[in-house]
């Protein structure tokens, strides 16, 4: 599969602060990658560099283009939600569709209208008259009506209720995603996208702390729930992180086989959120 995003030693600093610190990775076509990190980890800065919204050091190529210098060409082939609630509030829905239609060669207005017909959004409505959830539906309808090779979503569901969020991800998978397309997504609600992702990348303090395919996670990481003596024995295998759950110990291991931990307690593959905490906090300890 060809690589859509290729980053080699990408850095971006704001004054003395290194927001993105020597990051290298590849994102291949047909993947859904989750970019996970705490606030201020550099996620948004990295996304902005990928979208050509900010300059950066190092070699960054998106669809074979220099995102900052060839932003117009890039924007014809990618679509993104940088943040929810950034649609201009004064515009009418049909004006918005007309405008995107006239500047975007890959935008299909019939497709957007079909998506919107499933919602309660009326064509004459102004954005300011819509609820927060409807604005996001509108935004999503527009960008998913763009025949884009790469879709970038930065916190697309922030501030939305659970029903909207479920619907959003459902639509994304059922209506939008196929083998030709690639999605890069960040969110704090990690659990909700866990089953969606094919790949995951953790970023902390501007550095990538983990980049793996979801299929590879069970082999590389295992979580052991145990207590007492068994916990003591398991600790000798150098867990990367340990936490307490209902008076029991949960130890996270990296590169330890399930065979080695057999008989010490309950084994399972850690969830993304737990794994993230283990990687970030474990590294800090």
């Amino acid at each position, binding site marked *: 599969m060809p690589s859509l995003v290729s980053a080699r030693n990408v850095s971006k600093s704001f004054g003395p602060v290194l927001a993105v610190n020597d990051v290298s990775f590849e994102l291949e076509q047909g993947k859904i990658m989750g970019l996970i990190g705490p606030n201020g980890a550099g996620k948004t800065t990295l996304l*902005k560099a990928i*979208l050509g*919204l*900010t*300059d950066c050091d190092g070699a960054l190529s998106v669809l074979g283009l220099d995102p900052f210098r060839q*932003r*117009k*060409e890039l*924007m*014809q082939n990618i*679509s*993104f*939600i*940088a*943040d929810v*609630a*950034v*649609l*201009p*509030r*004064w*515009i*009418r829905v049909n*004006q918005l569709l*007309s*405008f*995107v239609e*006239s*500047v*975007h*060669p890959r935008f299909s207005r019939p497709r957007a209208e079909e998506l919107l017909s499933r919602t309660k959004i009326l064509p004459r409505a102004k954005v300011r008259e819509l609820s927060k959830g409807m604005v996001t539906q509108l*935004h999503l309808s527009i*960008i998913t009506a763009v025949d884009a090779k790469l879709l970038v979503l930065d916190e697309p569901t922030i501030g939305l209720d659970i029903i909207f969020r479920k619907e959003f991800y459902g639509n994304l998978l059922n209506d939008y995603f196929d083998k030709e397309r690639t999605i890069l997504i960040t969110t704090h609600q990690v659990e909700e996208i866990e089953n969606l992702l094919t790949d995951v990348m953790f970023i902390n303090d501007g550095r990538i702390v983990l980049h793996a395919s979801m299929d590879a996670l069970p082999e590389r990481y295992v979580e052991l729930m145990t207590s007492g003596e068994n916990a003591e024995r398991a600790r000798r295998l150098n867990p990367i992180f340990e936490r307490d759950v209902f008076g029991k110990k949960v130890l996270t291991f990296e590169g330890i086989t399930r065979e080695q931990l057999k008989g010490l307690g309950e084994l399972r593959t850690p969830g993304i959120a737990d794994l993230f905490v283990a990687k970030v906090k474990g590294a800090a300890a």
Partner: protein
Amino acid sequence: MIANQVALIRRELWEHRAIYVTPVVIAVIVSLMSITGQVTVSSFNNALDVAILGITNLGERERSGFITVLTAGLSGFFVLAMWVLIIFYTLDALYAERKDRSILFWRSLPCTDAETVLSKLLTAVLVIPLVTFAAIAVTQLVVLALSSVWLGMHGANAWHLVWGAAPLFENWLATLVFVMALPLWLSPFIGWFLFVSAFTKRSPLLMAFLPILILPMLEKSLIGTTVFADAFFVRSGSLPILGEMDVGDFMFFEHGELQAADSAAVSLLPLLNVGQFLGSPGLWLGLAVCGLFTTTAIYVRRYRDDS
């Protein structure tokens, strides 16, 4: 490129409805004032008949001049409003999109920053003047039509007094040239406003006008020269598109009679001196300053990341 400009400029008109609402409102007010005036004047029955008789007996040049002065007077409101519109529009153009963060959405579409900023400049120097001109022309027609009806009701020959005498097309051409020339002459201010709009974090109006007021004062008190004062105030007070001719030469009263000056024409066209305007270094210097500020505004929109 052109298709994008059309779409972008159309978007500006959707967003800034004041661009066409303001001239329409003024047009309605002026027309209403004209009706009110006619109704008021109608109460002076005897004096009125004498006046109409007097006007009817004026020479053709005097009648043309009279109507030119009347219609040009109407344009004044629109030209003033146009300049106010341009100021508020340009100060808002690159500020509002940052304030409501919609810039993140606009920049997710395949339009370059240069195209976007250019569309806003073109809206200020081209679209607003054209809309203003259209409003002026329609209002003049309406007011002249109302006057015709009124004159007809008082037994006067409206064709003779109004339509036959009005050098409408010459006046329109002159008005069009004038409203197009004004923003070009004031373009350094327009460029500055766009730059402030792209740059400032708050209160663009204040940020735009404080330096215009403070810089000349500082210069005068610190080094005693008036370079900035001249640049700011002499420019806004002069307009080389207007020829040497004084409006006072245009029409005058002699022995209580309205007279057209012998040398003067009776339309607005001879008042303009396009050659002098295009040949004035101040115009080109101003356009260069506007270009510089606009380029900086593009640069700021492209490089600054404050979302």
